[in-house]
């Protein structure tokens, strides 16, 4: 029996987060709102969360995302970094972010 592993990642600037297969980010045309679809749930992320989630492709790391957002909003990098990591950690804790699986087998 394998030890129970935690599914939730710890987000840092080197993380390369991606939505897990069971979570789909989608624009709901009917209600004109972005949603995350997950088992038995529909979640409505706010505008900033949507913008960050769209950058989560499993390739780009958090540091890159912060650089992009800091440039786009001409905002201090440190402040953006703090906010983005906190937001991604919140999503990860709720089970809506993961990292690309390392091939171990």
């Amino acid at each position, binding site marked *: 029996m394998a030890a129970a592993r935690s*599914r939730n990642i710890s987000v840092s600037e080197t993380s390369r987060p991606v939505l897990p297969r069971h979570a789909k980010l*989608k624009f709901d045309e009917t*209600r004109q*709102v972005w949603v995350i679809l997950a088992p*038995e749930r*529909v*979640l409505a992320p706010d505008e900033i969360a949507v913008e960050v989630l769209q950058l989560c492709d499993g390739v780009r790391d958090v540091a890159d995302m912060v650089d992009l957002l800091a440039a786009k909003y001409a905002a201090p990098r440190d402040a953006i970094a703090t906010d983005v990591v906190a937001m991604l950690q919140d999503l990860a804790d709720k089970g809506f972010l993961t990292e690309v699986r390392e091939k171990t087998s």
Partner: protein
Amino acid sequence: MSTVITDTKPQVTDPKDALSALEGRSSIAETFGIPLAVLAELTHRCPLQCPYCSNPVELDRGGTELTTEEWKKVLTELAEIGVLQIHFSGGEPTARKDIVELVQHATDVGLYSNLITSAVLLTREKLAALADAGLCHVQISFQGNEPVVANRVAGFKQAHQKKIEVAKWTRELDLPLTVNAVMHRQNLFQLPDIIQMAVDLDADRLEVANVQYYGWALKNRAALMPTIEQIEECARIVEEAEARLKGTLAIDFVVPDYYALRPKKCMGGWGRQFFNISPAGKILPCHAAESITGLEFESVRSNHSIAWIWQNSEAFNRYRGTGWMPEPCQSCEFKEVDFGGCRCQAFALTGDAGNTDPACTLSPLHEKIFKIAESEAAADNNRFIYRNFAGGTLETDGDHGA
């Protein structure tokens, strides 16, 4: 950034209010808002014979089922009117030969798909084909944590072993897995082991769903009703496990409402945020609604659109909102909290779907049903009536349905 996401759970088992975040936005069925998630009962055929099956006692025969083309048209229409998630259920949805085609079509029209399955008909190839067709999530029902209890409850030899095998394939294919454990007097003693089984299977979620007593389960109530001590122990075990397994396994817990003080907000309120489609194509406010005699349900085979049926049909409007409520519901401060509980249960136990759900302490019948639950649990008559198209078969000492 405390409210990054707003949770709008449209749960089937324990519906929370899905309208708060998304209501008021325009859709074709503007007044009530089209549900975010719909349950498609593709068939009532199932190799298992669980005595608590949520299907109606009057099962739809195979010949009445919607065709592949009809279901595809329904899926397209659902996506167009704003439904986001489709739960493929049954009976056993994989008893349909076209299940892969239907999942693929759901994907093509942009629906998030969930397969609610007994798993016993699945091969690894079929499951891989479903994954390739875009299936987003798999939910497998378990009747216990080991074959002796589980196969007897399912009325199917080798069911448990097969389910374990399919659950492993599910995770190997990197599909998210929910273990659905339906709990009652005869398997509640296994709950700690069932929780461990879900962890060992690498499930993402576990539903600890105490039986709800409609249809087949009502027929089998005497064999299934837990004791109040069991329910208290069950709640304690779930609470401990939730704390211990945080971040590893999410647990949803459904309590049996005979022992509750307040009724559940069944389906989130009649016709407020949920509908399901029966194998023959009827649009129902809940999967048990056909048990209420005197209500006419419209079909997708009628000339009406699904949005029209949702918004305008007599059956949906009959118990919608709070205007229909008699006392003690009408003046109750909780009337918009629980919407009077469950219409099917009110009908089954009082003969009138418009009465207060006896699960509520304010119902004049509450004490009576509490006593029924207590005495049936104490009598400990454990023989099942197995679910089948013949109206049920009583378990004998030598024959456990298999």
